């Protein structure tokens, strides 16, 4: 069974501190949904409100259409995987996995059998008699997943469960988590500050900052069509120009910046509030920035090469741009041809208005 989760005008306060501000999200049943944001943005607080360890100060949490107010974590159809996993060190692996069955009064033989099945699912057959301390980091990870799945939750909640693993294992576990989610078919709600995890695994991502949901969309949309300055600056890398809106069309805006007038797509949704004369940001991703020589482009800025780094599959080039004190970055795929630029060269950089995005001035992600 799987269930949808609805956060309906949820506010969570701790004294004067607002950890979640008017959160409205509908997570479809069976989807892999991620909350992405820097630490302290309120994503774990939201997860605890869904799991029942805390109650929203205002608003409702609905799971499978049912209001969860007053229902404790042991009665909710959710299972939580903790950041530190919280496996029981004094129980064997199979006892850990079968703990929720023990709670429900399932007989020992049946519990053992079910634990074996789950060990099979997480590719750790015949490891049931081991103690948790005998397992490696990745194996513990999988045992934690099996323990949560044994409770047959409608919704599985994961609180940065991969953060303790090394890079290689983390990447491997991403694929594995996604595969497990597709096999069991229940709703996964995943908390992370790692955009790579969020973008690769999720059907939908909610980007969060300071208790506010900035944007909810699939990974592609989050990356290509950010709605706010925070999303544009937090997800992926982005070059930033600041100026005043001088022209507005249905889909485009022209922003006068000290580096020149820049034409860019208008942000949609939450960020669709620009009017003429407003301060605005223009974002352009390093991979959309090009060297140009004479040809027609929507936007053009003058720059001087400050530094260049060769990273194998691509070049990273850093510029000082006329009229801006922010360093600008360009990445260019290494196609085997000689790069042909040197530090100190004066160059023209250009980009298409379609690849750039104009948002209202707002909070930026910390560098």
């Amino acid at each position, binding site marked *: 069974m799987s269930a949808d989760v609805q956060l309906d005008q949820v506010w969570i306060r701790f004294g004067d501190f607002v950890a979640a501000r008017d959160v409205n999200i509908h997570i479809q049943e069976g989807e892999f949904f991620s909350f992405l944001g820097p630490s302290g943005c309120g994503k774990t607080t939201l997860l605890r409100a869904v799991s029942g*360890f805390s109650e929203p100060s205002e608003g409702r949490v609905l799971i499978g259409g049912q209001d969860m107010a007053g229902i404790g974590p042991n009665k909710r159809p959710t299972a*939580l995987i903790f950041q530190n996993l*919280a496996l*029981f060190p004094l129980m064997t692996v199979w006892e850990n996995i079968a703990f929720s069955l023990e*709670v429900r009064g399932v007989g020992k033989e049946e519990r053992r059998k079910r634990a074996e099945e789950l060990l099979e699912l997480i590719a750790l057959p015949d490891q049931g008699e081991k103690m948790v301390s005998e397992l490696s980091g990745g194996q513990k990870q999988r045992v934690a997943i099996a*323990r949560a799945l044994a409770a047959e939750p409608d919704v599985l909640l994961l609180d940065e469960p991969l953060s303790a693993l090394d890079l290689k294992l983390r990447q491997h576990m991403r694929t594995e988590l996604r595969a497990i989610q597709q096999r069991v078919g229940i709703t996964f709600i995943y908390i992370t500050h790692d955009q790579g995890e969020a973008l690769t695994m999720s059907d939908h991502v909610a980007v969060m900052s300071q208790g506010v949901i900035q944007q909810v969309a699939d990974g592609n949309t989050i990356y290509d069509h950010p709605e706010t300055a925070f999303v544009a600056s937090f997800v992926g890398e982005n070059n930033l120009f600041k100026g005043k809106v001088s022209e507005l069309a249905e889909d485009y805006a022209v922003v006068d910046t000290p580096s020149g007038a820049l034409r860019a797509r208008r942000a949609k949704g939450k960020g669709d509030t620009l009017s003429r004369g407003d301060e605005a940001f223009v974002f352009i991703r390093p991979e959309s920035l090009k060297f140009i020589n004479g040809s027609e482009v929507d936007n053009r800025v003058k720059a001087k090469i400050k530094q260049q780094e060769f990273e194998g599959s691509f070049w990273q080039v850093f510029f000082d741009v006329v009229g801006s004190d922010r360093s600008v970055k360009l990445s260019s795929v290494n196609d085997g041809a000689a790069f042909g630029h040197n530090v100190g060269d004066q160059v023209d950089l250009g980009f298409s208005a379609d690849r750039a995005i104009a948002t209202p001035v707002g909070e930026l992600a910390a560098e």
Partner: protein
Amino acid sequence: MVAYWQDFFRRNGTALALYLLISVACWMLLMIIMPQIFMLDFSFRTNVPPPLWGTEAHGYTLEHYQYMVYGSAQSTDSYNFVDLSVFGRTILTAILVTLIDLALCYPVAYYLAHVATGGWARLMVMALIVPFWVNELLRAFAFKIMFGSTGIINNFLIAVGILDQPFDFIRNSVALYSGLSYAYILLMIFPIYNAVESLDKNQIEAARDLGSPWWRIHWRVVIPHAKPGITSGCTMVFMLTAGALAAPQILGGPSSLWFTQIIYQAFNQAGNWARGSAYAIILLATCIIFVLCMMKIFKVKLGEIAR
């Protein structure tokens, strides 16, 4: 081993290292090992007045241990029912007091470690500790006054109409059990607190999240984790209760003799140091064997208790 001691001397300097070694050795030898050896030796010797100590008359014998079991030769009983029953009752009461303390202290320790926060927790710890600044004898007398026939408890129970005449808490050992339970309560709370406190809160939440009711969380997660602390607390409370003297002396009823009182009488009133030593050795050995058996049953190692 040689390397260890060389390192020990290098780290602490010769003077400090010697001081540490000598002071620990003196402490162990003079205050723990020697008195016990003397007592063990005495318990196997004939009881003679001090001038004859070391003479032929001061020979080895098993009579004091036999006395504990069979009584004096003149007695008509086949066993020493008085001493044996006092001994048995002392051990049983010590077990009971230990269980009462465990039942009282586990929830308090858990509350302190995982529920109470900040100032409130500190206030509770103070409230637990401060009464123990008062001398042990004074505390026992305070209990005696409280439980007396015109004490606050009887007065209260009569005032609210539960009793119509004072209940003799002292003769019925209620005062004794209460006094003994209270006497060593800190030695139960703090080892359990230390053990429970080191438990990761997430484990409690994880068990709860997996559907566990509170009692099963304690049974399967908290208590197994706290077992060394629980054993440590129980061991200390049991040993000290079985060996208590002040509380039974003051709070015990006329008919309820404590085994330590018999030992005390043998030393100080009967002038029979040999018998007193034998009885003390019996008490010590019984307590040690009992504790070791309990540790075996509950699968706790000695090293874990010392953590």
